[in-house]
């Protein structure tokens, strides 16, 4: 099977969906789901194959290449699967809103262009798909209008800045080496001066870092994630920002190669260490900011930045364990963050758009399946043992400690403890506590929302107990990069410096849990009571008021909030304002009066003459 067929299906399907929507709504829904599933299924068949093809040669005489190997298969497949789940989730979510044809088309276009980026085999086609993705993402982020438009504009301005930087980098590479194909470029930088390599690194990192929301390039992400439609937030957070991760891995391990990367600079000022420290900062600051959020989706958005920090830290640290943990965490994060956005989306759908954490509560009684999804999601996010997040986080801690970087390990560990706080707040304020009276008639989430939630929850548990499944793929990627693969089995990882075995843990937890459950069941049965039969110092429970959710971490909030102003965002906004003022100033020159223009020309000529007389420049 040809790789170009996948792209043809993806892009053609996106357009076809738009036109079929004009004929029949049902057909459009079916078509959208079908196309996304077909892409995922076709990609699944490419497992463990590697192929390469030139699909077009007419673009400025560049041969545009598609290629697949285990590395791109891993990313492409994850993206396709998460994409198809979020389209299934969209079915009922988007029905109430207008412009549905446009929504599905853009959604499929984003997925198609992401797969295009992953499958492309040269930097020019990488760039073309990158731009398609940026623009279609912009259109989807501003889908909801209102504040969403501002969020979208913030996104597209940062994204275009990055793209331009990357374009300069690509042109520079082409002018140096005469090629933009990965396989030909790879290893060429071995002979380049380290100054040139750093130059290329910086240019690419602006683009990739903005997409991956590395601190301090993260400012577009919180508004974009919170204003986008929830199923698209799942795609944004789960997969789209990971295109940046893909680009970074591609840059470091395919184009530049690991041995050049590790020798770039010495000690603390090495590229490896600087990027790793940036990753650590990206973990810490957003984690603390996430603690202070009151908007469910904005909280998750900050959490996304923090988790992207783990991935960057792992990839940049450069040991085979850390790279494995980075890629594994990418995979895990795609699953649990998509799940959490879907959970929030389901609540938002049923409560008519409420995502303010201070006005919800007690929904566990009304939406139990959604709650269980959320619970498993936050367990994965925290990395509770037996969920998938645990193994990837364990790997990164271990390699940081063994290789004598305790401060980086400290940042990663502390970030996890912050994660516990904000993710519990998310769950508590939405699902636990007192149910307000107005939600007493709430229904469960519709089936098309519950299905992806349930499947993704099961995936979290599955990959938590059997981490060997994804690690096997990651191992073969790593051997392709020239890193030493880990010694794994299906239950865990074995090595001299530390072993993990999920089977033992699973059996222990399971048996002990069963034992305690039996004791619990065996003792006297307890009577079920409702939320209005609570202890309230003897009085009857006040309705709608007996809930502690506003300022859930009030004391900590009061302590740390003065230090956590998002000064990076302030900096960008003041930059934007000063550019706007500059533009206003320049505009004032154009008065529309021909007389002024004549004077300008005269002045300019006089200036030229003056310069010529004074310095004799030309």
């Amino acid at each position, binding site marked *: 099977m040809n790789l170009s067929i996948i792209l043809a299906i993806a892009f053609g399907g996106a357009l076809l969906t738009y036109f079929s929507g004009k004929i029949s709504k049902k057909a459009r829904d079916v078509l959208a789901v079908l196309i996304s599933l077909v892409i995922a299924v076709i990609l699944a068949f490419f497992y463990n194959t590697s192929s390469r093809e030139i699909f077009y040669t007419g673009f400025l005489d560049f041969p545009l290449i598609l290629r697949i190997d285990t590395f791109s298969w891993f990313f492409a497949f994850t993206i396709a699967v998460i994409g198809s789940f979020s389209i299934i989730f969209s079915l009922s979510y988007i029905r109430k809103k207008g412009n549905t044809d446009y929504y599905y088309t853009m959604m499929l276009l984003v997925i198609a262009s992401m797969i295009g980026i992953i499958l492309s085999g040269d930097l020019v086609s990488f760039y073309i798909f990158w731009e398609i993705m940026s623009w279609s993402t912009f259109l989807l982020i501003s889908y909801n209008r209102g504040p969403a438009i501002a969020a979208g504009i913030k996104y597209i301005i940062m994204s275009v800045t990055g793209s331009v930087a990357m374009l300069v980098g690509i042109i520079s590479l082409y002018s140096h080496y005469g090629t933009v194909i990965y396989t030909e470029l790879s290893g060429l930088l071995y002979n380049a001066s380290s100054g040139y390599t750093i130059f290329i690194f910086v240019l690419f990192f602006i683009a990739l870092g903005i997409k991956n929301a590395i601190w301090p390039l993260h400012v577009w992400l919180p508004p974009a994630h919170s204003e986008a439609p929830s199923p698209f937030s799942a795609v944004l957070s789960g997969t789209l920002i990971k295109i940046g991760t893909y680009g970074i891995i591609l840059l470091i391990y395919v184009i530049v190669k690991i041995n050049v990367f590790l020798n770039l600079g010495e000690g603390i000022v090495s590229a490896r260490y600087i990027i790793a420290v940036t990753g650590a900062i990206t973990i810490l600051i957003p984690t603390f900011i996430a603690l202070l959020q009151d908007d469910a989706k904005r909280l998750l958005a900050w959490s996304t930045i923090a988790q992207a920090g783990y991935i960057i830290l792992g990839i940049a640290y450069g040991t085979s364990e850390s790279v494995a943990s980075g890629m594994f965490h990418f995979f895990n994060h795609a699953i649990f963050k998509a799940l959490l956005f879907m959970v929030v989306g389901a609540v938002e759908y049923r409560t008519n758009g409420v995502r303010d954490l201070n006005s919800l509560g007690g929904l566990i009684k009304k939406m139990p399946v959604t*709650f269980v999804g959320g*619970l498993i999601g936050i367990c994965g996010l925290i990395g509770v043992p037996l969920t998938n997040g645990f193994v990837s986080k*364990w790997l990164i801690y271990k390699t940081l400690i063994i290789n004598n970087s305790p401060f980086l390990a400290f940042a990663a560990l502390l970030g996890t403890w912050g994660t516990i706080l904000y993710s519990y707040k998310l769950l508590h304020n939405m699902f636990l506590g007192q149910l307000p009276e107005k939600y007493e008639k709430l229904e469960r989430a519709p089936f098309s929302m519950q299905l992806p939630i349930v499947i993704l929850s099961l995936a979290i548990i599955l990959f938590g107990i059997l981490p060997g499944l994804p690690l096997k793929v990651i191992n073969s990627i790593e051997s392709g990069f020239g890193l030493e693969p880990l010694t794994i089995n299906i239950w865990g990882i074995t090595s001299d410096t530390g072993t993990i075995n999920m089977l033992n843990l699973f059996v222990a937890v399971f048996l002990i849990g069963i034992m305690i459950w039996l004791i619990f069941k065996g003792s006297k049965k307890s009577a079920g009571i*409702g939320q209005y039969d609570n202890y309230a110092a003897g009085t009857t429970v006040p309705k709608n008021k007996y809930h*502690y959710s506003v300022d859930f971490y009030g004391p900590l909030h009061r302590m740390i909030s003065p230090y956590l102003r998002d000064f990076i965002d302030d900096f960008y906004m003041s930059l934007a304002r000063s550019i706007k003022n500059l533009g206003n100033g320049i505009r004032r020159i154009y008065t529309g009066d021909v007389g002024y223009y004549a004077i300008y020309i005269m002045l300019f000529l006089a200036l030229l003459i003056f310069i010529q007389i004074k310095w004799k420049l030309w």
Partner: protein
Amino acid sequence: MVMTTILEIIFIILLAGIIGLFFLGLSRKIMARIHWRYGPPITQPLIDIIKLFNQTSMSHGFLFNFGIIFSLAGSVVVLLFLPFGRICPLSDSGGLLVILYLMLIAPLGLALSGGEAANPYTSIGISRKLLLAFGYELPLLLILLTVMTHYNTISIVEIVNKQFQAGWSFQHLSLLLPGIAYILILPAILGFRPFELIQAPQEISSGPMAEYSGKFLALTTIQHAFNIFISISLFTNLFLGGAANPGYFFLKILAVFVIFLFANAVFPRFRIEQAIKYLWRWPSILAFAGLIIVLITGKNF
């Protein structure tokens, strides 16, 4: 092989439960004596548990039940990773990092269970509990990282073994400061005064436990007993060199526990801000200094 492991597991769980309950009873007795009272019999926690199991109880729903089971299971599983003397059934499947992670299951389970109760007292208690945990995790993580960097391993069994060869951790200058920091934060981990702000019966009606009755309260008491055992044995294993046999190990944790009881008996209670400020100041500075010293002097192994 499997048979001995299973026997070890049963032995450790039973022994830890007995020791934990003994500690609870002992704490009530010693506290009473410090207050110039006669005090309850040392078996009082056991009597309470027997009574609680014979009471009716009220449940707020599935998560209310599940959380408490989850929490207790989490505590029990940690026991299998901690060396008790020389016995450590699951030593080869994780190490110190896994212990660190498993230790958070217990508070998480209680938090979930309490959250379902729909009572603001429980929510306030949970909020305080998570904040306090966040407060003491900062120095605790630094301390554990110092120890792990010093011995260059993540396996707690190996840390204990290396202490058999080279003496207790306290004897190394670089681990002395983190050891002191651990002593300073241990009352917070145990929930002893001056960090008794999670339950605070006079303020927030015993916090997360406000809605527990009957068997729920019994399971919480058992979990508390395990928790005391775990926190103190982690300290003993990391800094006091573990022990060659269970009896000696018991004496060590007993000594540590009694010292903290004296502190518990005389202190009043912090507010949560004061607690976090305290925890992020002195213990963190000490632990941080220890980590710097370890990095400068290099690894000893």
